[in-house]
């Protein structure tokens, strides 16, 4: 069944898109991440203009993070105060990212920036996560419990000025590294068309030592706010949000995410981290290959404006 997208100005197969949305939603539900970093490249490969793909992908991210935030609220697994600080940094990062995106597009190097960013970000984050989870496997194989986190075991940057108490996260830390992290995630999200959950979750866990119970809810809250702003910005600045495509992606993603979340509960946390690390690393390596191999077609066409 084909349907014509009014903004992308092309027909797509509804069933294929819902299936893809469900598959990505399943993965995102499984790992508690947005899934934008998988869906945006898929949409671009399908021939949807990159601007429309990046802009429209924000809508399913808003939908899925709303579901997560509501669930977290019911479980009281959301640190609103930490979330608001993250949102503040995220807005600044998003605006910076949108500006950088436009500048690089003018310079004709947007492809390169996106590819390099995917490669470095994904291989670094994926590599760190893989090391971490393999170490975990190793420790449990040898019957040794992993050293529990010590109360005072905080990195030096936590003691920078402007310290704030986050009681829900049992955190007393400077807001500067938190704002910096949120700024970086917002920047990366705007440039790459991703929510940034896969960066924010491990960073909050490992760098900020936020308890696991509030990490997902809090990061989803930040993603909800920044994605909503990004969606409205993309609609007003670029007129690139396709509502028909958004509805299709939301429908697929919402159902997929529910089944993913259900499957996720049966997954042991070590396997969970291991699989997520492999997934992130695989996406990074795929872009690394693209960057280093002689392209089959060295030429590309970019349409500036239709008249």
């Amino acid at each position, binding site marked *: 069944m084909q*349907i014509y997208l009014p903004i992308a100005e092309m027909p797509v197969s509804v069933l294929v898109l819902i299936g893809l949305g469900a598959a990505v939603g399943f993965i995102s539900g499984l790992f508690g991440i947005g899934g934008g970093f998988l869906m945006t490249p898929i949409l671009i490969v399908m021939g949807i203009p990159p601007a429309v793909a990046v802009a429209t992908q924000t809508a399913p991210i*808003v939908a899925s993070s709303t579901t997560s935030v509501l*669930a977290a609220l019911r479980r009281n697994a959301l640190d609103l105060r930490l979330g608001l600080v993250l949102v503040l940094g995220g807005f600044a990062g998003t605006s910076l990212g949108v500006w950088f995106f436009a500048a690089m597009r003018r310079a004709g190097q947007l492809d390169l920036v996106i590819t390099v960013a995917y490669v470095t970000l994904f291989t670094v984050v994926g590599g760190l996560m893989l090391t971490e989870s393999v170490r975990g496997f190793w420790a449990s194989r040898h019957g040794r419990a992993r050293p529990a986190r010590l109360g005072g075991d905080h990195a030096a940057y936590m003691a920078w000025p402007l310290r704030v108490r986050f009681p829900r996260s049992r955190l007393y830390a400077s807001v500067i590294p938190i704002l910096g992290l949120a700024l970086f995630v917002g920047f990366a999200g705007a440039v790459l068309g991703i929510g940034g959950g896969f960066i924010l979750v491990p960073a909050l866990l490992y760098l900020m030592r936020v308890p696991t119970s509030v990490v997902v809810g809090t990061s989803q809250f930040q993603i909800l706010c920044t994605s909503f702003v990004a969606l409205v910005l993309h609609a007003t600045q670029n007129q690139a949000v396709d*509502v028909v495509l958004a509805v299709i992606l939301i429908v697929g993603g919402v159902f997929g995410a529910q089944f993913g979340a259900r499957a996720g509960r049966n997954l042991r946390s070590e396997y969970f981290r291991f699989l997520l690390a492999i997934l992130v690393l695989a996406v990074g390596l795929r872009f690394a290959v693209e960057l280093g191999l002689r392209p089959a077609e060295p030429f590309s*066409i970019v*349409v500036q404006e239709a008249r």
Partner: protein
Amino acid sequence: MRPGHGPNKVPARAHLLLLGLLSIGPARAESLVVSLSFNRLAVTSTYTGTSVAVFGAVERDGQAAARSGGYDVVVTIRGPRQSLTVREKEALGPVWVNRAQQKFAEVPSFLAVLSSRALPDLADEATRRRLRLGLSAIVAAPDLTLAAPVPDDPFREALLRLRRRERLFTETASGVRFLAPTVFRATAPLPATAPVGAYDVEVVLLAGGVPLARHEARFDLVKSGIEQGLADAARDWSLAYGLAVGALALISGWLASVIFRRD
């Protein structure tokens, strides 16, 4: 099917051909009557591409003698113009990076060239270049880009190659069929990726490698109904549109949490 043969007086024919070449209207021996299968097509939610048929007839005035070699017709369909940049990746150390680029000012987003027989057979290269008959002649035209034209320009070749691969530029050597010696029909498929907008249809009549007449028509591909409404809203009320899509996403997320609530 080829047009019929008949007695012809060589000097008179040469004279008429010259007139045709100079495009002096009233004295022309042949003229074209062209009709399209539609002048306006509404793109709806189930649109998956279409095809446009071009019907034509050659009208000869009284004194015109039949052409010994028969007529040839070239139909060129041009989609809305767009300005674009073609970039070339080059190795920079271990990575491949966009380096050289060339801007093109007015390139048709869609091009279909249909002819009654292979283009090299129906006109020589100089004529084809001058009249922009055929994809390579159109892409090689100097007005396509501000850069000075150079032979075998790799950027023009890349433009042609990439657009052909996407089926947005096509050339069909047997696309025009003569139903009778002076009546022809051409059918061009319009893929769904061909953009909405105004399309120009140019029909050129030739005989023995010499152009005789030229006719232009146009049709519009327009979004309709809901599609047009949504596109208008996205453009004219972009803030409300963005907020509406955002609200839709929020409500969907809330609905999902209600439907799949587990506690």
